[in-house]
């Protein structure tokens, strides 16, 4: 029988599920597009994973992270529900124990995490500026008619620098169009874009922070060699892209789940069968006081399992969340 831990990272753009064995080896990884439907995506992901693992698996523990961590955590029965920053830090430390700087660029947000002597020391997270994220790159690739996978390689072919204004996504895009009109070739523009994104990242998140090596680069965008090269050029040091760069959040949450389960001795995991349940979210605006909280109700197979979003606890406290396990 295979014994394993699950890590689930539910982001707004992508959802990653990883399976880790008892020796902390990564057995399998799965990447899905969230497409604004986290519940469906998690269900779908779990049933795919179940199939890939075969019949006799025993899940020892499970952790969730990402912006959908609470929702997903309730669905799956997570042993730990952790923020993305901690999860990424834990995973990076696992692969590179002396790592001092983590650059993380995902679809929707980017982060910088500094570690010193193996503990989190400082971090910054950017969720509003699109110019420093994967979605922005996707969009530009699409606009230029280049598959995103080839984007980085094209940047490497460039041998002249075109400077793109990278202050914000809107400026960057119009400046790119301008440079196209001037007749610059595509490779150079793409390279310029990579450098603009890196400058934007460093100016936004790296401000006042001492970036020391080893530097590790993770998140979906780490697969882009153009961006990696731009980081190395601007920082003047080597940047390591770990093998599982795009699922580090999920790995971190599996590691955290393992630690948690070893403390409490059992898991809350509700079983892969939850993929067969029906989940629904309803919400309403409470009219009891001027806060007018948007209260979210979470249903599994028509029974209410959780409520959140109220400031006063009127709704969230007032429910017996049955943590009944489905068959495992």
């Amino acid at each position, binding site marked *: 029988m295979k014994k394993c831990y699950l890590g689930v990272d539910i982001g707004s753009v992508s959802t990653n599920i990883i399976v880790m064995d008892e020796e902390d080896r990564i057995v399998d990884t799965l990447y899905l597009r969230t497409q604004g439907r986290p519940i469906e995506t998690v269900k779908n992901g779990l049933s795919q994973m179940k199939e890939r693992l075969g019949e006799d698996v025993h899940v020892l523990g499970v952790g969730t992270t990402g*912006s959908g961590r609470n929702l997903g955590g309730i669905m799956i029965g997570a042993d730990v529900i*952790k*923020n*993305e*920053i*901690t999860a990424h830090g834990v995973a990076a430390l696992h692969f590179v124990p002396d790592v001092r700087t983590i650059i993380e660029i995902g679809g929707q*947000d980017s982060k910088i995490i500094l570690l*010193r*002597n*193996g*503990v*989190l*020391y*400082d*971090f910054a*997270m950017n*969720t*509003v500026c699109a110019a420093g994220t994967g979605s922005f790159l996707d969009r530009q690739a699409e606009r230029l008619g280049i598959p995103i996978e080839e984007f980085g390689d094209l940047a490497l072919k460039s041998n002249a620098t075109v400077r793109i204004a990278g202050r914000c996504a809107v400026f960057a895009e119009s400046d790119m169009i301008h440079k196209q009109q001037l007749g610059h070739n595509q490779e150079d523009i793409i390279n310029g874009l990579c450098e603009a994104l890196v400058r934007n990242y460093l100016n936004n998140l790296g*401000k*006042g*922070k*001492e970036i020391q090596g080893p530097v590790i680069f993770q998140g979906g965008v780490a697969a882009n060699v153009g961006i990696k090269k731009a980081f190395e050029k601007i920082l003047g040091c080597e940047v390591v892209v770990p093998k599982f760069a795009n699922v580090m959040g999920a790995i971190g949450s599996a590691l955290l789940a393992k630690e948690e389960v070893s403390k409490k001795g059992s898991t809350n995991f509700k079983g892969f069968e939850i993929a067969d349940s029906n989940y629904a979210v309803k919400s309403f605006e409470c009219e009891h*006081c*001027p*806060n*007018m909280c948007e209260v979210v109700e979470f249903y599994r197979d028509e029974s209410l399992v959780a409520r959140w979003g109220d*400031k006063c*606890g009127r709704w969230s406290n007032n429910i017996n969340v049955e943590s009944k396990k489905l068959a495992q």
Partner: protein
Amino acid sequence: MKITFPHMGNMYLPAKAMFDDLGVETVLPPKNSKKTLEIGTKYSPELICLPMKINLGNYIESIEKGADTIVVTGSCGPCRFGYFAEVEKEILKDLGHNVEFVVLEAPDGNIKELYNRISKIANTKNMMKIAKGLKGGIGVLKRIDKFEETVLKLRPYEKNKGEMDKVYKSLIKNLENSEGSQAMIKLINQAQKCIEEIPIEKNRDILKVGIVGEIYTIIENFANIDIGKKLNELGVEVHKSHTTSGWVLEHLFYNSIGSTREKDIRNAAKPYVKTMVGGHGRETIGNTILYAKDGYDGVIQVMPFTCMPEIVAMSLLPQVQNEYHIPIMTLIIDEMTGEAGYVTRLEAYIDLLRNRREKYKNEKMLSWR
């Protein structure tokens, strides 16, 4: 005359007490809510800081309830706060609201004019009566600030979760339904005793975090998405570097005689900021250093988006962080702030402090290099 004033934390209660004592009618603005902010944002200049947007929302909601006179404090100094009243006056006029603004300040050092304004809203020229009203109000204010401070300190230790909130909530409700400073002081004293007697578990592993930054966003829990309570729930004892009573006393009395507490803060800040940079920028630096020296685990700076004095402070904080070995996080808030991202940052920051404490529990030096 029906007086109203903007919300800032629990300040509306002592203000009400004072006007009650003076026999002046008040209209309390509805509690700060999404709606308040929406109204305020709609009519404010886009890039003005959050406090003004909420204030303006307060006024409009109060006017709808019948208020005709707005009382605010003024301020000079290089920060936009000094212009709030002037800008708000014009906006309200454009909206066709006929209200009077009374700005409590001495224009060009004209104390007589300040006295005129005070006696106008106090509805009496009798200095004794005014002084008495003021004393009552300040009595309530100081006690309620102390009460809040106690809650932020003790709540993470409470044995049965929710007990302190219950006392807090019922206190506020009782205060809202009572009249005059004497009645309020009695209620607060009772609640204070009550809260100190709630069973706690002193030996929990609780972190200590100080909050610095722009005074309005620190004090007004609607603006800061209730940072104190959120931190308490994450197992953190909280101390806020600004209170309303501190501010009022500072500006009404100590400024003229030179207060000791402020001097400490200024001296601490001196190596980084020598002069006043407007608002509380200098205090943000000074308080951060004092917290670090006091052995706090971390410091969080809270500021409104585009707040000039706090931007100055923010750019200096990384240096303070390095030299005092204390993790500092900045939270910038405006009407676009999403609560989810904010909570993620808070959680990660507390994880960071916890790891750091565990790692260095047995080491004297908290050095990072």
